[in-house]
């Protein structure tokens, strides 16, 4: 049965360096939760605090409601999938998987049977007696998952498990991991720097930067309604314009920039204007509002979308992304067109959270 995790105002210091800064989050039982952020943002430290290899300097880590302070890793109901997998090279696969059972005193026949069950669960048949060196990267990945599941943890912790795999395999494994999570119902805490991964797999995502949680929300909200510039920039692409806010009304505001005044959403504090390239529309005639005349500098066909780079009269660069649905003709570089966007698809956002978003 899975458990929820509560991080209550958790801080972690290494000497003078604060790796995790007042993080508060409640992860629900059975949830697939990802911590997303660049290297050094503190997500690995959080994982090690949940698993017990590091203790928080302040605050409490609770699993299933119980405070975990003082509990060593081998006493906690968590199972960790290491980044380099840490499979035991001197044991055959089934012993790797059954190791957690072995240390709990389960007898050999039962262990072996359970290992075979789990191998079937992760779709790795006939591998029980092989050695680790005989497997491919993806297969080793699945053994690591089976090994963790064997101890029936309340929480599974995954440390960027897919980063060593190449692209196509990664996408395949994403679906697999999600399927396994749904099948077993265990709480998954996943850390990654790959936003595509986090968005595709998670129920909710926690975006982190420099030890602070910037935003916790489901993937659609993270992408469509970022609370600050960091989240907006880290997850997806943006056109970013500096300017001043005028005339605030009903959550919308006028934003005066060097290339014109635009109407945009203002969800919170003032800052810069963010418009995603896929929300930019390219048209021959100027639009009703939020329209800018541009000259196209570069048109790149990238497979399933076309990226269009343009420049305004005063030299500001803008990017639009057009879907390649085969119908519309591809504009040529050098042509004069207008770029426009719907005000509801834009946001004025502060840079980053000073205190948790």
């Amino acid at each position: 049965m899975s458990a929820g995790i509560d991080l209550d105002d958790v801080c972690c210091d290494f000497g003078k360096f604060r790796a995790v800064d007042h993080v508060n989050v409640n992860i629900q039982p059975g949830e697939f939760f990802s911590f997303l952020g660049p290297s050094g943002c503190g997500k690995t430290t959080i994982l090690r605090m949940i698993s017990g290899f590091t203790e928080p300097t302040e605050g409490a880590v609770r699993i299933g409601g119980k405070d975990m302070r003082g509990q060593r890793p081998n006493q906690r109901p968590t199972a960790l999938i290491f980044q380099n997998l840490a499979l035991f090279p001197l044991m055959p696969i089934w012993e790797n998987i059954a190791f957690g059972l072995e240390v709990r005193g389960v007898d050999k026949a039962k262990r072996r049977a359970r290992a075979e069950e789990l191998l079937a669960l992760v779709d790795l048949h006939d591998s029980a007696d092989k050695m680790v060196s005989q497997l491919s990267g993806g297969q080793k990945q699945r053994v690591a998952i089976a090994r963790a599941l064997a101890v029936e943890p309340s929480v599974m912790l995954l440390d960027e498990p897919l980063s060593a795999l190449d692209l196509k395999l990664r996408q395949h494994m994403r679906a697999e991991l999600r399927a396994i999570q749904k099948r077993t119902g265990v709480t998954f805490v996943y850390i990654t720097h790959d936003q595509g991964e986090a968005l595709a797999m998670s129920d909710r995502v926690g975006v982190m930067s420099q030890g602070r949680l910037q935003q916790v929300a489901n993937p659609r909200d993270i992408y469509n309604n970022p609370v600050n510039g960091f989240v907006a920039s880290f997850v997806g692409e943006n056109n970013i314009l500096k300017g001043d806010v005028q005339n605030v009304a009903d959550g919308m505001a006028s934003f005066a920039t060097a290339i014109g005044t635009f109407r945009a959403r203002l969800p919170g504090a003032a800052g810069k204007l963010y418009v995603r390239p896929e929300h930019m529309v390219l048209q021959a005639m100027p639009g009703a509002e939020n329209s800018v005349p541009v000259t196209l500098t570069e048109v790149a066909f990238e497979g399933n979308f076309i990226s269009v780079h343009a420049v305004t009269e005063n030299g500001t660069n803008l990017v639009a992304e057009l879907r390649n649905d085969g119908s519309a003709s591809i504009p040529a570089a050098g042509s004069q067109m207008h770029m426009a966007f719907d005000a509801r698809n834009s946001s004025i956002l502060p840079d980053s959270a000073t205190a948790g978003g």
Partner: protein
Amino acid sequence: MQNNRRLLGHLYMALFLIYLLVPLAVMSGAAFNASKLPTVIPWKGWTDQWFIALYNDNRIWTAFGNTLLVAIAVVVIAVPVGTAGAILVNSISGRVRAILYGMMVAPILVPGVVIGISTLLFWHQFSVGSGLHLSVLGQVSYIASFVTLLVLARLQSFDQGLEEAALDLGASHGQVMRRILLPHLYPALGAGAAVSFFQSIENFNVTLFTRGGADTLTVYVFSKVRSGITPTINALALLLIMVTLVLAVWYEVNRRRNARIEAIREAEGRRAEDAELVAT
């Protein structure tokens, strides 16, 4: 020009090997010579009388037995002690580590006479008399260093993540040691045991001063060498050389077999990787 030098290299290697092995051959040859003194010149005819004499010589066998006892005791003590030292040093860093490491390696360089005399003096003040037990203690003091070096080298290739993974899965520290760390160290422990064993057998300096009245092989040969020695010693030497050769061959065969198996496994892993890239 390159080829000439290669040839020269091969020749030198061959000569060097001959240089190393000829004295052993001479030594063994003397075991068959029907001469009262151990020698190959003059050759007085083939005989196996010295092997028979060896079989009957009680004093040699007592000495040999003592030597084995001491060697086994040394292995039993030095291997755990040296391993403990290596694990300890490996887990520390900074100046303490450097100092500790220096202390562990230094005994190898200390002259055996110093070890022997210091051991003798130290234990005598507690009224512990001379004897084979003192020889064991004296030998362990420097033989453990060899074990430490071997185990430390092996520890470098150990992934600490494996210990963490095992702990995370619920293992106690004892279980981690037994099932994860020690299996990785087995080759080094085996090598350490072998080195300890052979180093102990051939030790002389420490043993001479600490043994009290008991004989070990080295001391026995030494005491007889200049006075009334017969080729029974050569017969014993030949036997020991044969045993060494058998062990060496067995070790080599085993090593080759294991290397082959590992290579096959890794090839299979690579094939699986390639198959995976195509399949997805």
